């Protein structure tokens, strides 16, 4: 069965922003990717948010009230915790020499939050890690597909209205 896409903070923030304004480039790519997911149509979710990403998105809001309001909404998405299995994977990722996509080892270890996000996806047998900074996840490439949202050619302004209820 197809695993979940694990979505990085930059995709969520850009996607959300694309719903407020007509933009070009990355923001549109983010929301186009999200719209293409067609989640829950087969009754199963297609995308998940690592708890670390949830924390980063909430931290980007300006007030406690906004964060509490956002938390209520985001709890209705598939938010995957950094659990014991992810912790085990994290330790392995941090222990391994960082390898580039070309298979070269540059001796650096992966960044703390990057490793936690990747570990969450790997421990949950995710299908892909979707981010605008795939090179930050080179260390995870042997274990999970790391990809950018695909390029799109969007002409129409994006509706601000939420999707109809399921």
């Amino acid at each position: 069965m197809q695993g979940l896409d694990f979505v990085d903070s930059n995709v969520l923030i850009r996607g959300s922003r694309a719903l407020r304004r007509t933009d070009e480039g990355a923001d549109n790519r983010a929301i186009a990717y999200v719209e293409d997911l067609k989640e829950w149509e087969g009754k199963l979710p297609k995308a998940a948010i690592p708890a670390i990403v949830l924390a980063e998105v909430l931290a980007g809001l300006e007030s406690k009230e906004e964060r509490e309001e956002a938390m209520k909404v985001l709890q209705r998405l598939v938010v995957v915790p950094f659990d014991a299995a992810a912790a085990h994977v994290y330790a392995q990722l941090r222990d391994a020499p960082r390898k580039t996509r070309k298979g070269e080892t540059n001796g650096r270890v992966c960044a703390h939050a990057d490793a936690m996000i990747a570990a969450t996806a790997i421990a949950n047998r995710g299908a892909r890690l979707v981010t605008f900074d795939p090179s930050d996840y080179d260390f995870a490439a042997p274990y999970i597909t790391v990809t950018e949202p695909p390029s799109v050619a969007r002409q129409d302004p994006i509706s601000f209205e939420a999707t109809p209820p399921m």
Partner: protein
Amino acid sequence: MDAATAPADSVITLRLVGDLTPDSMPLPKLLELLAAFAKVVQVGGAAAEDLHLTQITSASVGLNLVPSEAAASVASYVIGQLGPDLDSVDDELKGPVQELRAKIPHGTHLELRQAVDGEVFEARLTRLDVEPPKPPVITGWTVVYGILEGILAGKQPTARLRVPGRERQQRVKVTKEQARQLGPMITGPVKIEGLATWDSETWEILDLEAKVIHDFEPISLREGLARLAEIAGSAWDDLDVDTYIHSIRGR
């Protein structure tokens, strides 16, 4: 390999004795047994090619192996060590001998006999039941999301979930009260928090005991982002997302 052949009287006899039928000793099992014996001799210092079969007759489960000169002496040394217990066996041989014993079919024992220069070496090995090695497991709290496909009633009610990324249904142990709570949710999405045991090689959840059944009314990621956009207002309009992410991750 051009190994010198030992004198004819050094032939090693392996004899399976006991409750044997043709079904209980199919060829693969026999090969496993022979391979395990060859490994015993090999670990002792001879080459695996130094043993081969001889004098095979129909209706016989006894196998005669002709060793090379080197293998003959190794085999007699090893067989001589295989007394009624394994205490006297060299440490490096204990593992291979255990493997050999694990290959002996149920209800049988294995007799080994070798005569070298008029001296007879004999051993009798019984079957050793070896548990297959279990993968290391990790236990901890987690949350699973999926579609509830059914609930098995009984002394230990079990919820069956279809979960993304897992080939098989995920079984979740639930209490009777939780089973009642889940009843109306069948065929719908569920979010269950509980204590999990993972296979640390495949990350399959081997065991999951539900602690909390959440009220979960999922929305799509698209809808979640639309609501987030309302909440964030203009706060992110001019945000340099890359800089923000890099700063919050301490780069």
